[in-house]
């Protein structure tokens, strides 16, 4: 049986990898640093949870398709209603960043207004009878396979499937068009590639993957509407660690950040409890988000272009 710390760390690693890859994808295609990516996750969490609770599904995993579609839909909305008009006006990078920040706040407050406040207060009695809420699916008993928690199987499988799907996608005609649009949008346009459509699809994929990540996140961890504040540190850290210019870098970066955050803070907590005595560990746990932040800072200082820019062969030969 796997140590619960390591299994949690693996799950979080997989979840953040799924969230990071979408942000990397949209950054590569449209060159927009999307500050609303964590908010796609929040929209997905609450859509999936509502589908599960009010749709009467047997397990929260069946809410995942709804979560993924909601994430994709919110990404498409952001692209069509906010970013495309702005890029057509020739808005600069900072303005695009602020626009995504604003969109993220609209998403968050939309979720807080509709799902969190309205749906929960209208169905207060129904939810009280059930004993769990839209933000506390993690308290439900998870299914077990040979004593292994369901999420520990589903999350890595989902990540593996996602990696395979992306690899295959990049080899299709559409994938070639996408790579062309990333390399040189003007030239791609001349060759008859519908660059706008490529962008739209890449935004949808990004939101879709964030949605799956969000759906699984709500099964793993409590997820109030302020979840975006919690996960945004990890997402940015993972993306920066991966080096914003590679999809596989995003997967690796997200996994490393999610894994090390959970694993390192647990080790430090246990160490503090043993060394300084009772309750010292809970104070150390306050530094949890310091770990992704530290990873981000070190990455920016040492390898600002991320893991993918490191020449591993050369480095290993030297070492």
């Amino acid at each position, binding site marked *: 049986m796997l140590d619960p710390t390591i299994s949690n760390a693996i799950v979080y690693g997989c979840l953040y990898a799924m969230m990071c890859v979408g942000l990397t994808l949209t950054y590569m295609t449209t060159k927009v640093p999307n500050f609303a990516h964590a908010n796609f996750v929040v929209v997905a969490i609450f859509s999936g949870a509502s589908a599960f609770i009010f749709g009467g599904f047997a397990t929260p995993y069946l809410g995942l398709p709804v979560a993924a579609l909601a994430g994709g839909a919110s990404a498409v909305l952001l692209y069509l209603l906010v970013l495309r008009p702005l890029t057509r006006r020739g808005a600069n990078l*900072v303005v695009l960043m602020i626009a995504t920040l*604003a969109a993220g*706040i609209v998403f968050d*407050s939309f979720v807080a207004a509709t799902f969190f406040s309205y749906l929960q207060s209208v169905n207060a009695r129904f939810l009280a009878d059930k004993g769990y809420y839209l933000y506390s699916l993690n308290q439900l008993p998870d299914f077990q396979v040979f004593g292994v928690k369901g999420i520990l199987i589903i999350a890595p499988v989902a990540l593996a499937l996602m990696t395979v799907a992306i690899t295959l996608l990049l080899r299709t005609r559409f994938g070639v068009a996408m790579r062309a649009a990333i390399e040189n949008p003007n030239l791609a346009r001349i060759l008859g590639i519908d660059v706008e459509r490529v962008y739209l699809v890449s935004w949808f994929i990004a939101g879709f993957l964030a949605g799956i990540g969000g759906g699984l996140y709500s099964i793993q961890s409590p997820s109030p509407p302020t979840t975006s504040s919690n996960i945004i540190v990890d997402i940015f850290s993972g993306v920066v660690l991966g080096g914003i210019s590679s999809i596989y870098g995003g997967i690796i970066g997200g996994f490393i950040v999610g894994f090390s955050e959970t694993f390192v803070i647990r080790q430090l907590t246990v160490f503090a409890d043993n060394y300084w005595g009772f309750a010292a560990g809970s104070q150390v746990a306050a530094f949890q988000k310091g770990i992704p932040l530290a990873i981000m*800072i070190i990455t920016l200082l040492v390898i600002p272009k991320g893991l993918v820019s490191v020449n591993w062969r050369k480095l290993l030969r030297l070492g």
Partner: protein
Amino acid sequence: MVDLGSLAFVVSALTLPGEMFCFFLVVSLTVNLEFGYAGVPNFGKVLFISLGAFVAGSFAYRLMVYLLNLKGDIFGLQNLFITEINNKLAANPYLAVELFLFMIVVAAAMGGFFGFLASYPAIRLREDYLGMLLLAAGEFFLIFSQAYLPFLGGAEGVNAPAPVFYIGTIVGQPDLVVLGVLAAAAILIYVYSERVGRSPLGRTLRALRDNDVASEAVGKDVVALRRNVLIVSSAIAGIAGVMWISFQPLMTPGTTPEATFNRLTDTFIPFVIVILGGAANNRGVLLGTFVYLLIYNAFSQGVTALGPSVQNALSLVGIDNLKLMLIGGLLIFILIRRPQGLIPEKPTLTMSRAKLKEVAESVIAKPQEKEQQQEKASS
């Protein structure tokens, strides 16, 4: 004759909006300095405001506990302690003034120092890295200050000493004194931003914003300029934090909308104000702050005016949520429809028109004089 009773009523009704106005004006001016003039996206504004407020507030509280020789759990007995401290401040105005100045200095130092430190890893890179880093640092600090109990005692929070308010009790008009001090600070910082904006430094910052490669080519140290702008405006943001706890002394850390400082009100709203009013334009910021607070309060007043049935219906979705959706949508609308804001940026006239004319004439006159001299010499 002015009716003193109604005047007092007007003053008390305007105190809180006035204090909010001063706070948001100062914060927005710093955002304008960074984003409007220099094009630096400081998405961690809340970090510097909350650093200033939390560190100065809790430091001042601990200092007073130490000075008054109070014994016991500083968070468990905080109601007792803060009453004791504030009584002392009311009795000793010199101590109160000193404490206030101390808080300002601590907040400015914290803001400035962390403005340097938090931006250091990304200041040489593209703006998006800086934005991500500062945003992440801000969220980390908010989560940390709630989770780390020895700092502020957790989500319940702790009261900061209120020296300005208790100086006011000596005069007999505490609210008015607080408002006056905040207004004085806001005016000072406004004048400072205006002077920076009109100075050669302000024009350099605009050049750097519009084309950093070209400014580097003419010998401007782009990295140093960006860093210094961040340090100065973060120091001012720290002072703004102390301004906030001067009229709202309870400091509750956290990332929720109920917390004292959060990403919505302290990072996002100042950007709304600057873009609404017009970036790189201090008058625009003044107007933007006013219009924002007008919309904000009109929304609440409007909901109240619609009667209890509408109010109950709206409270199902949460009036604050609706407000935020409206404000976020408004910002996107402005960015798409009117990116220059209410008052567009103008090129600064560096000298008066008469002076410019004089200089122009002297420049034009010179070659003619030379020609005349040459003609004389040749003939």
